[in-house]
């Protein structure tokens, strides 16, 4: 019984992380009917932001040396969490703006400049222009200058190309195009990750003090586990409030029901879609940061792949587009994985996700909480 509850707690903790990622999948699916395969990689970026912030950007102290450092570090960790959410939210918006929006609305001049800077990135990295900040601030600024210069030049050079393409673009409502693009963005982020973050696995040491609490009958709950649960819960409650009670949230629900009718009501759908990606990205960023900082797993550029797929499965079994469904699906996945992982069949830990998926799709094709509402004519 003790082990059972112990695994259950671990499962819920794991599940709440899956749920955070799954929310991003399900919200984007809700508004665009698009499976944003790059979402797991946003989670990876969140973990890396956690790593860089903890190791380089913010003045974390060793907690063993100074008891006052503990409090300070907790405050800093909250800053890291917010930073990670902010940057991943921004990444989500950028992905939507430059990868998915042109598929809906066609290319514009801004796209030329974006791709200008995007193409100048590998050049900048090839010359180590701003890879090694430790080489000195002067070198860093020099790198930034080269990056901007090349970016602007390439951007202007691309303008006629983009114009040429945009005049010949035939927009098709095909979902397949968006899906392939999503896979492309995912590959770009993963391989961009090798380039920017390097291939070596990174590891974040203990930044915040950890403590084990004994609760009923010898079950141990770790302060980090508790933090993950509490933070996830808070984020989900905030999300619930946004979706149910704010103007933007209502617009999101309207879009997910009927995007054209939403346009007819005066909703700027592109803006609301951006906000949706920002929220999804921020949640994934929070998840990635918490995994990196609080559970000390190794971070690699491919580290978002498996959690991303599992979170996607969680979103599907909950009912794609259904927000409570994503949370439920995440928890189910986490708990199932914890129980299988803790049993003598632990090698099947990852396979259980897909087994559950197959069973649930056979029984309830619309997902656990998904509904097929018949329309009155």
């Amino acid at each position, binding site marked *: 019984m003790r082990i059972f509850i112990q695994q259950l707690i671990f499962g819920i903790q794991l599940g709440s992380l899956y749920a955070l990622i799954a929310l991003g999948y399900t919200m984007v699916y809700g508004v665009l009917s698009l499976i944003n395969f790059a979402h797991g990689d946003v989670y990876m970026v969140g973990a890396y932001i956690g790593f860089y912030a903890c190791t380089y950007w913010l003045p974390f102290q060793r907690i063993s040396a100074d008891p006052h450092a503990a409090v300070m570090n907790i405050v800093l960790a909250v800053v890291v969490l917010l930073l990670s959410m902010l940057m991943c939210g921004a990444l989500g918006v950028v992905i939507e703006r430059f990868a998915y929006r042109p598929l809906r609305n066609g290319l514009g001049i801004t796209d030329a400049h974006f791709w200008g800077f995007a193409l100048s990135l590998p050049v900048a990295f090839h010359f180590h222009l701003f890879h090694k900040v430790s080489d000195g601030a002067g070198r860093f600024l020099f790198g930034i200058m080269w990056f901007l210069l090349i970016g602007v030049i390439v951007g202007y050079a691309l303008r006629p190309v983009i114009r040429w393409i945009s005049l010949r673009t035939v927009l098709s409502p095909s979902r397949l195009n968006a899906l392939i693009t999503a896979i492309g963005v995912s590959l770009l982020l993963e391989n961009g990750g090798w380039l920017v973050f390097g291939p070596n696995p990174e590891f974040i040491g203990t930044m915040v003090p950890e403590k084990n609490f004994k609760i009923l009958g010898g079950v141990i709950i770790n302060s980090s586990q508790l933090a993950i649960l509490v933070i996830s819960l808070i984020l989900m409650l905030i999300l619930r409030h946004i979706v149910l009670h704010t*103007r933007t949230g*209502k617009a999101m*629900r309207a879009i997910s029901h009927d995007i054209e009718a939403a*346009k*007819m*009501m*005066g909703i700027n759908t592109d803006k609301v879609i951006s906000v949706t990606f920002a929220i999804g990205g921020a949640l994934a960023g929070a998840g990635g940061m918490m995994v990196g900082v609080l559970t000390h797993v190794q971070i690699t550029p491919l580290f978002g792949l498996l959690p991303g797929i599992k979170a996607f499965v969680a979103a599907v079994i909950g009912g794609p587009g259904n927000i409570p469904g994503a949370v439920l699906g995440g928890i189910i996945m986490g708990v199932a994985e914890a129980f299988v992982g803790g049993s003598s069949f632990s090698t099947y830990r990852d396979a259980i996700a897909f087994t559950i998926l197959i069973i649930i799709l056979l029984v309830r094709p619309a997902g656990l909480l998904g509904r097929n509402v018949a329309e009155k004519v």
Partner: protein
Amino acid sequence: MLQLENLEVYYGSIRALNGINIRVELGEIVTMIGANGAGKSTMIRAISGLIRPRSGKVFFENEDITTVPPHQLVEMGICQSPEGRRIFANMTVRENLELGGYVHHRNKRQIREDYDRVLSLFPRIKDRLNQSAGTLSGGEQQMLAIGRALMSRPRLLMLDEPSLGLAPIMVRQIFDILQDINQQGVTILLVEQNAWQALRIAQRGYVLETGSVVMENDTQSLLADEGVKNAYLGE
């Protein structure tokens, strides 16, 4: 108030509108009648910016709005109640109405006024405010769709087949309400297959056939016209 000049719309290589010219004056009810597939809905979609015409122009109060995106048109005062109602079925009736007033969110008083006005026009939906909109009857859904469009305080209200799938008595009721709305100062462009009801309340009418306007006149003359009688009034 609204003017279409040589509006041509294509779906891929298929021409849906053949360069049509229509105008709607301030305070009028103008109806566009025509059979299924004549291009009526296409015209509404082109006016409201949901599809881009290949050529031709749309003017609203002498301003070229051909390429204005849909959400800005709502701010400018054009709103539509779409074909098939397309209410947000999984949201409550109240939320549907709130979304109708989406562009005026800063003006709480105006929203309140419009809300009260809509509920007084459609007392039937007043009792169902907290109900999910999908549970309403067809007629009530149509009322909600019109009420939702009114929440944006349009100066031009476009209605696409408000009689679709409704019992005759309900159609009559809704068209009477449209007349009331018009008397409150809203110009109406009404697209209908139910020509009899549409011509009953409109001042002028156009007849659309396979993407072209084939007739244009005041409703008295259209009602008296032999061709219209045979094709659309079933006499």
